[in-house]
């Protein structure tokens, strides 16, 4: 457990530091969302109608941004070889790094989303649901994304490849995430959508560490 926490703490320090991608990711997210009113026009009804989709799509793209560096920098300086020899199973190492990735991308992104929702005229009732859906959905993005990041370790054009591999696989998160917010905006229960998001997260949490570990081991051979 202490080794797990040590890896999380290390990656957090790197993520929050000057070279970390956290601020850049957040800025990209805010900027991407702000472009939509400029693109589709400032009419409040249109913005309110597309708000959930815009925020979710921007979150998906923002989560992809820093993924290619998730294992890459550790592989380049040899840290990954040491981590692979640690007494901690490689799956748990991968999980620790993924958790740190979520804490520096998914979590801040979710926390700033309500502000963007207000800018996009989202129904007030839907905003807490948006926050809940993002908090439930973005960990899945980090988990599935980490598979893509590990598979493309050492690949040519890895940075472009990760979104190409990952985005089709996280479509369910987008659909249930937007569904939850829209249900709340229409005064329906968001429960089923949130439960499905939770189920997806539970499945991803159980299965993806194996895939990540297998891919990392492959890259270190």
């Amino acid at each position, binding site marked *: 457990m202490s080794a797990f926490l040590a890896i999380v703490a290390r990656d957090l320090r790197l993520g929050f530091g000057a070279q970390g991608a956290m601020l850049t990711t957040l800025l990209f997210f805010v900027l991407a969302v702000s472009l939509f009113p400029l693109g589709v026009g400032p009419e409040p009804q249109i913005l309110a109608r597309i708000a959930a989709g815009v925020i979710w799509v921007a979150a998906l793209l923002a989560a992809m941004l820093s993924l290619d560096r998730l294992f890459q920098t550790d592989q380049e300086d040899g840290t990954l070889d040491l981590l692979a020899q640690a007494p901690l199973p490689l799956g748990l190492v991968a999980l620790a790094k993924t958790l740190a990735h979520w804490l520096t991308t998914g979590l801040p992104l979710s926390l700033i989303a309500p502000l963007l929702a207000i800018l996009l005229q989202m129904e007030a009732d839907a905003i807490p649901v948006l926050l809940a859906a993002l908090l439930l959905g973005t960990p899945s993005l980090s988990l*599935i994304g980490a*598979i893509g990041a590990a*598979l*493309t370790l*050492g*690949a*040519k*054009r*890895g940075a472009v*490849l990760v979104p*190409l*591999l990952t*985005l*089709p*696989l996280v*479509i*369910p998160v987008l*659909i*249930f995430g937007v*569904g939850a917010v*829209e249900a709340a905006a229409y005064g329906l229960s968001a429960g089923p959508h949130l439960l*499905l998001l939770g189920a*997806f997260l539970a*499945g991803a949490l159980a*299965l*993806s560490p194996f*895939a990540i570990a*297998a*891919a990392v081991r*492959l*890259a270190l*051979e």
Partner: protein
Amino acid sequence: MLHALANPARFLRLMAAIRPWAAGVAVLGLGVGLAWGLLYSPPDYQQGETVRIMYIHVPAAWMGMFIYAAMAVASATALIWRHPVAELVAKASAPAGAAFTLICLITGSLWGKPMWGAWWVWDARLTSMLILFFLYLGYIALWEAFDDPARAGRAAAILALVGAINLPIIKFSVDWWNTMHQPASVLTLEGPKIHPDILWPLLITAIGAKGYYVWLLTVRVRAEILKRQARILRFAAATDRRAG
């Protein structure tokens, strides 16, 4: 059986034995099925002659899904038993699957224009096929991203398995999304039961398409094995030159 086939030379002999039969099934099935479907089957009472697009669209959709399943099984075999030929079967399948999926998308679009009045409708089935197409492209791109074929093969195998586990969830979510946004459903094949005059040419075409896939596999896997052998020979020659 599985281990016997891991020997590339034996696998090549088996491929050579299968090839003419697969070619025969492909030519007969596609020839008879398409001629029957496109020329002699009755037009639909509502859709008229445009229903004939189905004889290409539906077998292509079946093949797109079938080949992904075959790819996933081959990838699992490659990962679990380190089976060198299974990896090549998966690699050789991907472009064929992507092509069938693309044919399904294009014919679906051509069919959509007279039926729905638009080239593209975000119908649940078409959307799922589009995502399947993206999954194929990602798989192919991952194979191409590494210089070392051993590394590329196993990474691609892991990706194919992750995709295969996720595919039913994606399919379910797209159906869910579609019922949420588009309550009135469009035409489905299950509707009124299919008349035998339509079903038979459809099935015969589908069998022909399977034969074509098997024939394509025998050709492409052979090419991949020869390519690997050429690579090894080239490396050996380069080492000899340096040593000598």
